[in-house]
């Protein structure tokens, strides 16, 4: 999907090109625009205007609670001034880390799991010695379609310190009862808890990796074998470059997802930031600012910060792609 973007931006249409069009071509253009008009209108109304509006909000003091009676005013850069020194975002020392660091820290733990685990399972699914691949493939994908709230409750039960199966299994493996983790209620265990709750979301990435693996021509492996490559070498020299586009795809989606992570802490720890403020993710703080406290302006300011950060990271990823992502059959200029 992202190869379209990796090719670089297409040429801008010029007025001259339009003037030179034949009447038939112009008619085709009108019809084409008509067919894509649902998206054009939707993009304008539900994406473009709101982006602009949230930029304007960020220079105002709009709160819904008082917005109905009092008129919101422009306050210049006040929201930005408040944001750059907001300890709830940036605090790095002290008892609780700022929400941005929590997000980045959790992302750094979660992203490798979110790439390597589905890749590992896809490699297993692709193994010639595995029988019943189709059944396994569906079964490993299946938890992906379980409603998120239900999945969180299932894992919440599994990870219950008293009655959950995980701690019961640890005890029966000889771990003393006192030293079994307190999972979602423990500052040190809450991030691993969320990572475990997230493994049911690997289905999508796994299927995409698997499709990528199945698309690698077998004669490339045969050629590597003839050249004397071992399994490790043929993975890095054949498999990895051939599936690099799907790794890139899953990586970009994973990064964009993790920057906006907050629904699990919202449901599991009721959005309180417990234990000890460790689960006050950036987007959770944003959600509370906007939804609970109805402070639209400060929420919009934070949303713009997030937008900017995601933009930097995705632009970096797309720039890096030309060094490590290989599109077969696509001549690189």
């Amino acid at each position, binding site marked *: *999907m992202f190869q*379209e*973007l990796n090719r670089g*931006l*297409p040429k801008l249409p010029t007025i001259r090109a339009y003037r030179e069009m034949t009447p038939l071509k112009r008619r*085709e*253009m009108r*019809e*084409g*625009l*008509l*067919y*894509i008009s*649902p*998206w054009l*209108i*939707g993009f304008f109304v*539900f*994406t473009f205007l*709101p*982006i602009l509006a949230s930029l304007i*909000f960020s220079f105002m003091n*709009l709160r819904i609670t008082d917005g109905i009676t009092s008129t919101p005013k422009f306050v210049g850069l006040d929201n930005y001034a408040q944001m750059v020194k907001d300890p709830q975002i940036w605090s790095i020392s002290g008892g609780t880390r700022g929400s941005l660091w929590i997000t980045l820290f959790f992302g750094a733990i979660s992203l490798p799991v979110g790439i390597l685990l589905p890749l590992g399972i896809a490699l297993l699914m692709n193994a010639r*010695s595995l*029988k019943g691949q189709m059944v*396994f493939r569906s*079964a*490993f*994908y*299946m*938890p992906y*379609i379980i*409603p*998120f*709230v*239900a*999945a969180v*409750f*299932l*894992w*919440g*039960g599994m990870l219950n310190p008293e*009655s*959950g*199966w995980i701690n019961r299994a640890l005890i029966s493996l000889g771990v003393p009862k006192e030293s079994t983790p307190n999972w979602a209620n423990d500052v040190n265990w809450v991030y691993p808890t969320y990572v475990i709750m997230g493994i*049911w979301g690997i289905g999508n990435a796994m*299927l995409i990796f698997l*499709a*990528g693996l199945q698309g690698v021509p077998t004669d490339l492996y045969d050629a590597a074998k003839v050249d004397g490559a071992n399994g490790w070498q043929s993975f890095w020299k054949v498999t990895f470059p051939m599936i690099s586009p799907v790794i890139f795809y899953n990586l970009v989606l994973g990064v*964009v997802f993790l920057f*906006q992570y907050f*629904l699990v802490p919202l*449901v599991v720890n009721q959005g309180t930031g417990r234990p000890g403020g460790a689960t006050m993710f950036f*987007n959770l703080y944003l959600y509370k600012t906007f*939804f609970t406290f109805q402070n639209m302006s400060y929420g*919009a300011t934070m*949303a713009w910060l*997030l937008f900017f950060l995601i933009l930097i990271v*995705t632009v970096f990823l797309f720039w890096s792609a030309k060094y490590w992502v290989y*599109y077969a059959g696509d001549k690189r200029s």
Partner: protein
Amino acid sequence: MATASTFKPRRAAKSLVVTSLTLVLLLLFLSPFAFMVFTSLKTPEQIGVIGSPIWPAAVATFEYNGKNLDMFNVPMNKCEGSEESSATNGLALVKKGTRASTFVDPDDLERGEFICQVSWRALDRPWTFAPTFSNYTEVWSSINFPRLLSNTLFYAVATTVGVLISCTLVAYGFSRFDFPGRDLLFVVLIATIFLPGFVTVIPTYTFFQRIGWVGTWLPLIVPSFFANAFDVFLLRQYFMTIPREMDEAAMIDGASRFRVLTSILVPQAYPVLLAVIVFHIVFAWNDYFGPLIYLSTNRAAWPVSVALSTFNGIYGQKPQLIQAGALMTLIIPLLLFIFAQRFFVQGIVITGVDK
């Protein structure tokens, strides 16, 4: 060249090892489902008992002289009169004691009461399989589950219709019409995936609140009629695999552009249209954030996901009800997946792997 397949012991052994390891991995991966089913079939008493098994179990009891006595597994060599026996029998406890307790044997009542030199606390108990289905009925009636289901179904059907119509039209426009700026617009469409939701949600929410749509389904249903990047991409990719010669042949026969879409492309693209349908039903069924912000003030309109999320607060001490509710919520997407797996897999593969 046909070769007779020969049995290769080494390959068969490797296959057996890999397949059984994968099976173990899969069982671990899916074990929360077993946890959910077992827990939802328990009574509160079964959950409270320390040392009770993971499956829904009740302590076996035995009625003796008009009283219900608890059963215990007692090594018979500790009991007077059977010191030579190596068996462990299920006995009913008549009188508790820390060193010695009095029992009767339900299978040998003629023996009468007898004393065994055991501490009753240290004994295992025989458990019988005793599932209870009352948790389901309790959840069903306490949160008005039929209404939640009909709300969710309505949301799923309405948005699926919207997505299907709008994305088919837009994908047709992007795949079959050449005009300057088309590819740029397509890149813009794909780029919307990277946009963090809150940038657009905050003004949109504010706007919907001003026009009085918050608390209604409209903010959730109306935008679905304006296409989205994933489904347009999926449909466009599929349309591009259908040869254009077929369109041209139909147009020479006098078919309009719209007729080409409905008579040539749509009938051939039915697998991918089905993929869009099943994805969207599941998406709407599972959607939590949208209904949460737009419907939290209107309980009567809640879908299952939002209602289920309140269980944590209401039933924090009743895991059996939480798990029963979770099972009732996930059963429909699960069944849909089982019957339509092929379309799920195909849809994901196209978006992830196609160029």
